[in-house]
């Protein structure tokens, strides 16, 4: 049994970590938090040049064709540093959607640019508060023109391409929309995590080209969200681990009542529980990675398992990292809030925790009911 990453994949992890230590210090994250730029363009170009963005994109479409396990490794490192780049929307979602449902021409038109970071893609599903589902889609396409409003759209303010869920007579379909084209209005939204931008996109007769078959949009979306959930789980696990390390380091360094605060059981036990959550989430994320890389029939269950566990762990570690830091943890100057913002932003990014909990049990139930193969 080798339920672990290979030595080559671990070397890749070290390589990504070195790159990000150099190119994505906290100051880079803060520059996006506090400044006008929607994301760190230079870092994103660098990730493209290193081949990290295109790890799971085939070589014929401008990627490096390594695979999804490698992309999981990269995602974890991006999560550790709160990288302020549009990987979730462009790589985990838009590129995956194109690979699943795109024609050769559509893939050739967009994947090479997504792989290098030259262009950014995003997936536009939600239209307001509440659960995002097939029935919540009101946007429409008629005669190749899209009308409707999407919010929040991750990186919608900077993206070049949106893959939009919208209705046509056959049902909900997905549509490629060039956001530089006519009939598109964008508005950046103020959010809890400005290091991963969100926008409101209004479409008024924007030209739209169908991705995949008519009326099959939500089937593709489900598949894309499952794949993205696993990749994002690795970001969340990376963030959870880093938040735990920060808390541990501070507990060792901070003195109170004449001793290290990390010698108090109240603090030790809180950190132990963070470790437990992070460890369970990591093991569940590995399960997702295995299912994703092997194309297993377990993928829907594994994705929901990885997602629910990772969301829980990152939120748990991020909030208790602040708690460990005490008052200093609530200052703008300390980095704790970067992780707290990111943890709570990512918890909603692909649909809320309760939605994924629901999906997990529904899928386990379906698996239970499925006839056992002879």
């Amino acid at each position: 049994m080798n339920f672990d990453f290979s030595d080559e994949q671990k070397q890749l992890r070290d390589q990504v970590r070195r790159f990000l230590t150099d190119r994505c210090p906290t100051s880079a994250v803060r520059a996006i938090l506090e400044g006008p730029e929607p994301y760190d363009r230079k870092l994103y170009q660098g990730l493209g040049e290193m081949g990290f963005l295109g790890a799971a994109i085939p070589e014929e479409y401008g990627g490096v064709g390594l695979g999804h396990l490698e992309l999981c490794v990269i995602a974890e490192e991006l999560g550790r540093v709160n990288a302020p780049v549009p990987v979730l929307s462009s790589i985990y979602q838009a590129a995956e959607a194109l690979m699943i449902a795109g024609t050769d021409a559509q893939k050739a038109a967009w994947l090479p640019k997504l792989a290098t970071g030259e262009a950014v893609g995003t997936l536009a599903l939600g239209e307001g508060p509440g659960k995002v589902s097939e029935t919540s889609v009101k946007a429409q396409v008629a005669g190749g023109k899209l009308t409707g409003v999407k919010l929040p759209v991750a990186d919608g303010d900077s993206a070049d391409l949106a893959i939009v869920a919208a209705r046509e007579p056959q049902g909900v379909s997905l549509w490629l929309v060039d956001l530089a084209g006519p009939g598109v209005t964008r508005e950046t939204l103020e959010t809890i995590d400005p290091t991963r931008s969100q926008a409101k996109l209004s479409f008024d007769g924007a030209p739209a080209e169908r991705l995949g078959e008519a009326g099959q949009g939500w089937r593709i979306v489900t598949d894309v969200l499952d794949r993205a959930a696993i990749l994002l789980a690795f970001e969340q696990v990376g963030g959870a681990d880093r938040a735990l390390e920060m808390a541990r380091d501070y507990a060792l360094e901070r003195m109170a009542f004449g001793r290290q605060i990390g010698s108090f059981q109240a603090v030790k036990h809180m950190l132990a529980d963070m470790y437990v959550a992070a460890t369970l989430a990591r093991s569940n994320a590995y399960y997702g990675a295995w299912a994703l890389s092997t194309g297993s029939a377990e993928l829907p269950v594994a994705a929901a398992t990885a997602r629910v566990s990772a969301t829980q762990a990152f939120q748990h570690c991020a909030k208790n990292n602040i708690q460990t830091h005490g008052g200093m943890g609530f200052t703008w100057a300390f980095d704790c809030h970067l992780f707290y913002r990111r943890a709570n932003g990512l918890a909603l990014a692909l649909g809320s925790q309760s939605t994924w909990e629901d999906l997990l049990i529904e899928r386990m139930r379906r698996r239970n009911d499925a006839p056992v193969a002879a």
Partner: protein
Amino acid sequence: MNFDDTPEEAAFRSQVRAWIAANAPTHLEAELKQSSFGNMGLKSEDPITAAKAWQARKAEAGWACLHWPKEYGGRGATPIERVIWGQEEGAYGTLGGLFTIGHGMCGPTLMAWALEEHKRKLLPAMASGDEVWCQLFSEPAGGSDLAGLRTKAEPANDGSGDWIIQGQKIWTSGAQNSDYGILITRTDPNVPKHKGLTMFWLSMKSPGIEIRPIKQANGQSGFNEVFFNEVRIPDNQRLGAVGEGWKVSLTTLMNERLSIGSGMPTGFPELFDYCLNFQTEDGPAADDRMVRSRLAQFAVKASGLRFTGMRAISALSKGETPGPENSIGKLVAGASMQELAMFALDLQGQAGVISDPDQAEAAARFQAMLLRSPATRVEGGTDEILRNIIAERVLGLPGDIRVDKDVAFKDIPTSGR
């Protein structure tokens, strides 16, 4: 990344599978599979006779104590082979509960510290299940603080060199079925507590030993109190030097943590199954979103433990020592089972109070879980001790400030005096 055996592992597995298929007590399989959370559910046969018969059969064919050296009755197998054996033995493995403490803890301690002639005599009989062993560690005054134990060992005043034991142990699993035990005692109360301890092995038939079952909070009796009234032990049954008992006991406790991949039960499969079938006014319980949300939270814990175990087995397969992440198993499983039991009873409404298996839902398994689960959070290291272990050994946080560290044992304040 895969769950596949290496070619060597696959070959070993098929060898194990074939032998088990040809030799296991198949007539007991159905009954053993119904065993719930660690309790052997055997009623058609005397459980001890059945356990000893299966162990003897394994020993004859060289399948007993796989991880032990051959000269002491084991197989000299690798850790991963031991895991594969456990997976293939499946429900029959629950028959081995009688021997868990002997094979997992007493045996390795004897191997490290007993006289060679004693090892040659005692270990093969322990491996084959002829003789059963128990571990006499915890005391009323020394549980989590094991080194606070007070059972005394003093040299006999007849010049024989023997030791005379006076005191009491508690929470001894299987004492009533045991032929031998390993015992930790205090030989010097005038030095700090960790320094005055000494270990022995002894016959449980020794004069002066009295065993009393403990009636537990759930009404069952799985543990005992063991009283020592002037029990005599020859000096050549001492394990390690006088005053080195703490070091010797660490050998035992480290072996306790090495049982990888056995998988603590969480109760989740039972709860999931129950929620699929239990009919509420609005259909199966699993149709309810609130129920699904709770189920999902239990599901990811159970799954997280399962795949953490897979990671440990992968480390073993590569010849590595699994990391300390395995210390989370009991911490997660114990708390999870307790919450899960409360949730299952809540679903049952007022009738959740019924614990008669003939009248209660799911044969009262959740009521039994509710009443047993507090023990899981205490036995073999409380939740709090496990969190300390994680905090100190995994995260590198400082140990507690110990007020009794440099104090002679006799001067340490206790609740008893």
